[in-house]
């Protein structure tokens, strides 16, 4: 439904305007990552690690098909690695790694943690050579003002291979709201539907992991449509007065119900009352979710659980666009007033 939304939004920067909340049309280049990267053909899981010593590796130009860089005729696995410094002045922005177009399949790691994947490696091989890779970097993975290791695992099936084109770099969102609790990070994820999953004490140990925001198709759930649940546990650290809080859930494809500590706080779209009933979806996937949390529901300086029930009617699915996190109502109002002012000028 929103295939290539990132690409089209970046192209349509001017028409969409820079006002919409968290739209990736707002992304600005902070640091270009084009140029020489460490490169090796082959595949070894240790190569994702920041500790791995790649000084003996060759240097290769990015972006460029590896066929043009001395690896003519090579098909199969290869790794790209690069160390970068991310300035702490970007701490309050949402940061994205744009890896351009990769032929055919990739998996990207920052400091040894996976931040995104597109296409599917063998044995269930599926190419995604025509998709631009823009991955949100969870803030907790970043070592601000220090070295950060990027590692890109690539698989090429035939013809050109590698990070072949694009505007490779570190990008930041404009107009980012300062979240009191940033929830853009790894969440627990499980396809299927079961309302017991909303309970705070539900056991999600065996669940998979997924990055939020990001469509699930890019994270190992290719071609999955239907129900799925997300769960995240977090501590709301505060010493301040009790204030009304707003939970931003960004954009979700297609419908969602959000539970905080087992209580429904908001929903977009209508879920069927009985299982098996037809679900109707329209343009709910475009709605920006900001749910007001009832007073007294959030536990201060203690563990809280958010559970999100999602229904995807087809194609792209999941919590696909940020921001995702908690902030005070006062900050939220200020944010919208600021947007309004920019709009008036």
């Amino acid at each position, binding site marked *: 439904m929103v295939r290539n939304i990132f690409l089209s939004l970046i192209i349509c920067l001017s028409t969409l305007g820079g006002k919409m909340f968290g739209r990736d049309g707002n992304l600005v280049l902070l640091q270009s990552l084009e140029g020489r990267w460490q490169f090796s053909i082959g595949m070894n899981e240790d190569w994702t690690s920041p500790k791995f010593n790649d000084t003996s590796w060759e240097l290769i130009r990015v972006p460029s098909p590896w066929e043009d860089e001395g690896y003519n005729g090579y098909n199969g696995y290869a790794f790209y690695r690069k160390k970068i410094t991310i300035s702490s002045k970007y701490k309050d922005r949402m940061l994205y790694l744009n890896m351009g177009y990769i032929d055919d399949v990739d998996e990207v790691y920052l400091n040894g943690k996976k931040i995104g994947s597109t296409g599917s490696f063998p044995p269930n091989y599926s190419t995604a050579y025509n998709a631009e890779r823009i991955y949100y970097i969870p803030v907790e993975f970043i070592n601000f003002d220090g070295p950060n290791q990027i590692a890109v695992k690539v698989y090429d099936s035939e013809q050109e291979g590698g990070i072949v084109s694009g505007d490779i770099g570190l990008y930041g969102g404009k107009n980012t709201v300062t979240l009191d609790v940033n929830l853009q990070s790894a969440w627990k994820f499980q396809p299927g539907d079961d309302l017991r999953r909303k309970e705070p004490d539900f056991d999600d140990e065996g669940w998979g992991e997924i990055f939020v925001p990001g469509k699930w198709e890019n994270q190992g759930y290719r071609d999955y449509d239907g129900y799925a649940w997300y769960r995240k546990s977090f501590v709301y650290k505060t010493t301040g007065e009790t204030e009304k809080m707003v939970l931003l859930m960004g954009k979700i494809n297609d419908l969602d119900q959000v539970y905080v500590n087992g209580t429904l706080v*908001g929903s977009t779209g209508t879920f069927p009352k009985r299982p098996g009933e037809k679900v109707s979806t329209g343009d709910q996937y475009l709605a920006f979710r900001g749910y007001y949390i009832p007073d007294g529901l959030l536990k201060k300086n203690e563990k809280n659980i958010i559970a999100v029930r999602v229904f995807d009617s087809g194609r792209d699915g999941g919590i696909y666009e940020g921001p995702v996190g908690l902030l005070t109502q006062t900050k939220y109002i200020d944010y919208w007033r600021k947007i309004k002012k920019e709009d008036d000028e």
Partner: protein
Amino acid sequence: MKTKHFKLFILFLFLFSTFSSVRAEDLRRIVSLSGSWRFSIGDDSKWASPSFDDSGWDQISVPGKWEEQGYNDYNGYAWYRKTFRISDIPSNSPVFLVLGRIDDVDEVYFNGTEIGKSGKFPPDYKTAYDRTRKYLIPSDLIKENAENVIAVKVYDSYLEGGIIEGPTGIYTDEDNELIALNLSGKWKFQAGDNKGWRYSDYNDEGWSSIEVPSVWENQGYEDYDGYGWYRLKFNLPQNFTTGELYLSLGKIDDIDDVYLNGEHIGNVYDMRKDFGYRNSGGEYNTRRVYKIHEGLLNRNGSNLLAVRVYDEQGVGGIYEGPVGIMSAENARRYKNRHHNYNGNRYDSFWEYMFDKFFGNDNSNYDNYDNDF
């Protein structure tokens, strides 16, 4: 068989027409509230108070979608506030706050007191985006020649939001001039159905309070369809006009049975013999005026009016005035005003045909118990 199918088809048409039954067109506007209102996103119960200082708030045009006024992509809660003066409150007439269409849910405060709501806020969210908002302002809340404050809490689920479409203003019902004794205001209300509820000696103390006229959905019965009973105790003023009297109940959605001091005095189907009620399916839009039989009113003590209402679907209740007692002369004027009453029951051949074929009955309402 053929007739039956045709009947079903016509029923279908009328069911569609019953959805938007609250209209402001029979009302007269006394204050326009279109224009600039104070606005803030978010939600705080303190914002309902007339003393809250909203001078730091943003300003927004009403009616209008907030998406088109700098709040593109915003979904969730927001409050609107408006301060206004009114110099001439019609006496003996109900005064309404009309806010037009609100997307999706609202709760309205007049000088700090909640006067009505439509739809349901999350988590049990239910939209009422297609309903025109018309709330009766209790007469003790409105202040003449002083500032009045309206505060509207709105929730928008997604897409366009806010007080999006007029009319917006303070309205009165001109028909009320024809009323000798105004009976609009607070009544007792109970959902359900019970034969005993018609009698004067039934104790309705435990019933809830409801504003008449106004749909019950505005007053806490959001999803309610089926039977509901209204009860009102009233006394006639001293030296109240003698002679033939009529009870006007305005419009009721859908079917009513009216009891005065325990006796049945009318039902919407009586209206076809007189005026107004045109054909089956149009019950909700029919003005009720029932003759009060000589000797039924207690001139020196209390009287009990009990109205049994059956609502098939959508909004329900005694929703549009005038509500009160009229002289025979004014009842005739009232009929003339609204139905071009000229001794002929039918405005057109087609109405006559509808009537002929669809009968003097309530067969559209399968669940309505007419042997009550």
